[in-house]
């Protein structure tokens, strides 16, 4: 434990997880919004919207996140000139958020679409029969019921997102995987305790989160 007794190392450890938390938080919000939009597109009556949603999902779901993040840096920032902050770290952070959100939104969209399927078809038919439009059917009848059944999968996606935040390290953000690598490089004799501290921190956050979503899903489940 002498490694973490050094205040510089301890600060690096703390700030690395602070980055992970911020990445997770910002991307979770953005991915949820984007995912709902994509899901609506994929079930909409307009073919070009459906096609766009499907293309988005198939592209991002099938590309390694490492490459997605890479393209955010070299495509969005370096080539398209999208600069999001003057500070280098902050700019990389937002590029990471964009990559994580775009990637995670594809999974959110698919989870929502599957959730829509748990709603019996009769519900949508009844909604149409009383004259609701597509948007109303979705917003008032289908999505509220679908949301309850996607709590568990969305929980899994959130947990995966938090772990995926480590991949933003490839564009130089000093998040936990980079800091762990650094600490291991300079403290070769303490590899195992260093790993246990980093892995343990993730576990301490994520295992309760998993149980929380399990509990919530049970509570909200639509009894049929």
């Amino acid at each position, binding site marked *: 434990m002498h490694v973490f007794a050094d205040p510089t190392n301890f600060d690096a450890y703390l700030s690395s997880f602070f980055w992970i938390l911020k990445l997770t938080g910002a991307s979770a919000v953005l991915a949820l919004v984007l995912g709902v939009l994509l899901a609506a597109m994929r079930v909409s*009556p307009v073919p070009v919207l459906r096609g766009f949603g499907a293309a988005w999902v198939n592209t991002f779901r099938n590309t390694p996140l490492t490459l997605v993040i890479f393209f955010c840096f070299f495509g969005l920032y370096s080539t398209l000139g999208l600069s999001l902050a003057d500070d280098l770290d902050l700019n990389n952070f937002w590029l990471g958020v964009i990559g994580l959100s775009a990637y995670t939104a594809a999974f959110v969209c698919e989870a929502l679409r599957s959730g829509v399927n748990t709603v019996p078809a009769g519900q949508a038919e009844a909604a149409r029969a009383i004259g609701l439009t597509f948007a109303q059917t979705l917003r008032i009848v289908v999505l509220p019921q679908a949301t309850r059944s996607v709590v568990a999968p969305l929980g899994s996606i959130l947990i995966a997102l938090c772990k995926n935040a480590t991949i933003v390290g490839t564009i130089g953000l000093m998040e936990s995987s980079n800091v762990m690598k650094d600490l*291991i490089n300079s403290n070769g004799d303490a*590899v195992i305790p260093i790993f246990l501290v980093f892995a343990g921190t993730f576990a301490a956050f994520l295992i309760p989160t998993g149980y929380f979503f399990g509990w919530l899903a049970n509570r909200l489940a639509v009894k049929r």
Partner: protein
Amino acid sequence: MSANTVLYDHPGPRARVRNAVLTVIFGVALAGLLWWVYAKFDQAGQWEGALWQPFTEGATWTQFILPGLRQTLFAALTGMVLSLAFGIIFAVGRLSERRWISIPAGAVVEFFRAVPLLLMIFFIFYGVPFLIQAPVPAFWAVVAGLTLYNGSVLAEAFRAGIRSVPGGQAEAAYAVGLRKSQVMRLILIPQAARAMLPVIVSQLVVLLKDTALGYIVAFPELMQRGVNDLAANRGNIVAAAIVAAAIYIVINSLLSALASWLDQRSQRRGFRAQRRIATGANPAGGIAVVEPQG
């Protein structure tokens, strides 16, 4: 437009006009965006022949991309087999009535689901050699990391699947005199595996993508050979990454297509016959567990 959707009526004249307007607006905006991206890449010289010329040479493929792809597929296949085995063993372990089995099995699954794969692979490569006093080849570091993580996710999938088999099945099996292990092996696991097939295949797609994290231990897979090493030789990293992404997308789309084909086939056999609101989405059982790591 699919005729059997239940979310909206068959469009009348006004709806058709509205849809056409939306199509045009969105289509033009999208085309404009794509053109802008193309123009910007052009301006930055990313379409220059010199950057793409390596991909017309045989050596680029035979020396970099294909060997990398071979390692990616080999690691993914090994990882798939091992994580399926890991998943079944730990799912059964977690469902055991003996607490000295179920609690440790549960703890293992929960732990490995919570640790980022990047940290795991890095630790297996640099840390485990201190424990076993022998080097861990990069290949096995990647495969072991993939197995522990995806195996744990699959264990949860199997567990959910086993629990979704109607209780009467197990009761009937006990009634005809099968032992507990036989009930699990002959009755529950086959049905669970079938019900969870789409989830399992989706998770295997995730596993294949995750091999890309092997770059952290210099495992010579597609990312390492086809992007990093190729760019070190030819200085065309953006072009190389575009080609690598295309290869990943093609392979994973094939796997996903396999998943939906399997799903449709099992539906034809009368499994989960249920009307869907959104056509072609994963079945409800399929959404509970896929974790889109890396």
